[in-house]
């Protein structure tokens, strides 16, 4: 049984034929070739599959694609505008917050959502917002510094 879904991904209208059992993560990676979003566990424990749905971070491995019908989805590929990196992408590079990089897309998107709602978060708020993304390389310290460095540089809707 296939269901047609229409959604906006990174600002573009998209359509896909999906089975009810396909997760948003599978559809993003396999139907739309957006492989920047990762699957680290498939069970919502690691956070590497986090994308923004209507501005909010969700574990796309636990969201059925049919539930994304009509939604605005932002993946890591949607942050830069052309050659201009999003301030968070820039600060992650500059602060050395990227080691193996597998968690970077999820960390950046989670941070973007935070800064879009709380423009000047405390360290506690930064940590809580990113608490669902595991980083085994242990880049947490520099990730917090990178988020702090982007404060004031992002605008909602970026």
């Amino acid at each position: 049984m296939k269901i047609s879904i229409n959604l906006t991904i990174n600002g573009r209208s998209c359509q896909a034929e999906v089975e009810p059992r396909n997760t948003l993560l599978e559809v993003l990676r396999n139907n739309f070739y957006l492989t920047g979003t990762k699957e680290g566990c498939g069970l919502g424990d690691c956070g590497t599959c986090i994308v923004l749905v209507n501005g909010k971070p969700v574990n796309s491995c636990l969201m059925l694609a049919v539930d994304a019908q009509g939604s605005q989805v932002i993946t890591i590929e949607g942050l830069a505008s052309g050659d201009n990196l999003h301030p968070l992408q820039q600060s992650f590079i500059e602060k050395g917050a990227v080691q193996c990089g597998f968690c970077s897309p999820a960390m950046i998107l989670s941070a973007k959502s935070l800064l879009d709602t709380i423009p000047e978060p405390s360290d506690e708020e930064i940590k809580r917002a990113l608490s669902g993304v595991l980083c085994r390389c242990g880049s947490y310290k520099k990730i917090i510094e990178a988020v702090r460095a982007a404060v004031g540089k992002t605008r909602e809707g970026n």
Partner: protein
Amino acid sequence: MKLNYVGKPVLRLDAKEKVTGQAVYSVDIDLPGMLHGAVLRSPFAHAEIIDIDGSAARSVAGVRAVVTGKDFPYTFGPMIKDQPFLACGKVRYVGEPVAAVAADTESAAQEAIEKIKVNYRELAAVFDPQEAARKTAPLIHEDLENYSRSPVFTIVPGTNICTSSSYRLGNPDKGFVEADAVFEDEFYVHAVAHTPMETHAAVAQYQSAKGVYVIWSATDGPYRRCKELAQALGIPLNKVRFISTYSGGGFGGKGALVAESLAVVLARFTDGRPVRVHFLREEELTASQTRIAALIKLKTGVKKEGTLIARRAEIFWDNGAYASKAPEVSVRGALSIFGPYRIPNLEIISKLVYTNKEISGAYRGYGTPQTAFACEVQMDIIAEKLGIDPLQIRLKNAFVEGDSYINGQILQNVGVTETLEKAAGGIDWGKPRSKGSGTKARGRGIATIIKGTKTPTESKCVIKMDSDASVTVISSVVEVGAGQKTIMAQIAADAIGVPLEFISIPNADTQHTPYDFGQTSSRTTYHMGNAICAAGLELRKRILHIAGDILKTDPSKLSVSDGKIIEESKGERMALQEVLAKKFGGPGGAIVAEGSYCPSDSHMLNASPGLKSMSSIFWTFATQAVEVEVDTGTGVVKVLEVAAAHDVGRAINPMSCEQQIEGSVVMGVSNALFEEFRLDKGRVMNDTLADYKIATIMDLPKTTPILVESYHAEGPFGAKGVGEPAAAPIGPAISNAIFDALGIRIKELPITPEKVLEALRKKKKE
């Protein structure tokens, strides 16, 4: 040579790809016609396979191959060739691959493996290494003596002991008699998982007309895997091609054939269609590899003023079902039990034992996290008994420049004292501080370690400069996440004399990129750095020769810096691009230089007769000092602050060094406090990241990385290494800090709240 990049915190060259989602990891490789693999695994810890019926699996729509051990009866192993691609005849751990399926979709493959019927006859299993070492234990590898293996490792035939080693220096018995005090303690360090965020994955393709296997993977040592696979299959090295991708973390866990061997098996039977095997998180946790659990008995004799004079160590290492790299860890890693200390009389007896559990092998630290726990907790036990400050007793015994290592190698560039002083200073050691209040108690602890690198190993590279002066460094360095490629680019740019932007470092591909031992043992900066330096300097020489020709000047009066040719007392003469354009003109051309480094002839390795193999071309030292807070009501331990001082020789990229140090502090805290395999008859019960807990960002202590530079005489620009040592000191430092806070001594890892409360209860009774 002007250093524009070496020593500077150059931004990671791979970061942009990673923050934009463009970086291709092994899990992202997608090829035309690619199939998906799934693996059926043993539910028993030890059992005979009676028969396997894959017929129902074959009839699932989309299934292209169903394979069992009988179809592919080869074995592999980097040190002892004991591991089948798919179980043959018996299974030795819960999770061992028994059959595999390749299908059009992941769903079809997963559905198909459920339909494979296997009949087992359960055998008695053994889970404890001391028990497994006994002659009465069930034999896990009956054929151990007939396995081909590296002659370096001694097995005990007819037992489960797959590596037995010992080393002795001086006269420990005499030392104990002469000691003023003798300490005997037993320690235990548990197995932990690597849990990289990217689980193991590989794509393999078998090109039957050429007899070639091509494998895409994030393995940290493409050439070594290539050799292991080629040897297993009895085919030439150039019939196995490893193509590297970015790695989503390895930490030693991708230093073996894991997903690769399963992808290869399936690829053999899919008529040339590539097959991807991507481990489920459950498979990474239960059926890949773990750190080697160790039981350590440590006896140390000291003089009353704190000088160590004798030590005897006995270590039981728990190998799990197959050897992997554990033999080397149990021999080389074991030697770090003596710490960075002068001990004139010493002995170690080390036994690596098979058990019916998940394979254990290489893990960040390669034995030092285990040995350091024992060594450094006992140092504090000794210090306390003798009434000496824990920092002072370490300073007293620590190696200094010119000391002999345990095999007679003269130690140079010894930064341990500086790491001790700086780490201690970093948390205000010795200064008054809050001891906590109410149910919260605070304490400080310190631990120091020594870590060598596998010696000798080789790195080779080729550097080509194209006619527009753009440079490609052709090497087998894999970007495992630690910034290796950036460091290589920095070294190349400065060695040649060009801007960093000129440098490109493509991924390793054993068909094209020359030999390298791999990203392991913290060796890359040193070994590949030296090779790249050599090639870069050679390239520079050729550039200047060409420039001399073009400018009609003596090349010895020329230099190249920042992509410009400079003449002595005349200044900038010409841009490099222009020189090459004039040289090569319309037809084009390139300059190629090769570089190679292997330390085997270095006089720095000289040692007592017959003991040179124990030398290391560089020794790194690290000290971590921590402050913890213990909730005496719940037993929960919180690490508040860590000062981590590491002797890196020379920081080629200080930011990368910080990343490694900060990162491994997090990993070490996580290993010591949160991580534990919960087993039920050999089956791992906590097989998800919800229940196998690793540190989150909320668990981050205040971390201060401190770089100590002792300038290695033969390292590139003085560099040594940093990645591996860092995970070792934190475990013992935490245990020591808990003692400082509460007077309770925890001699095993992990340190759980239950153990803390139990120890408090015992202390109250005394």
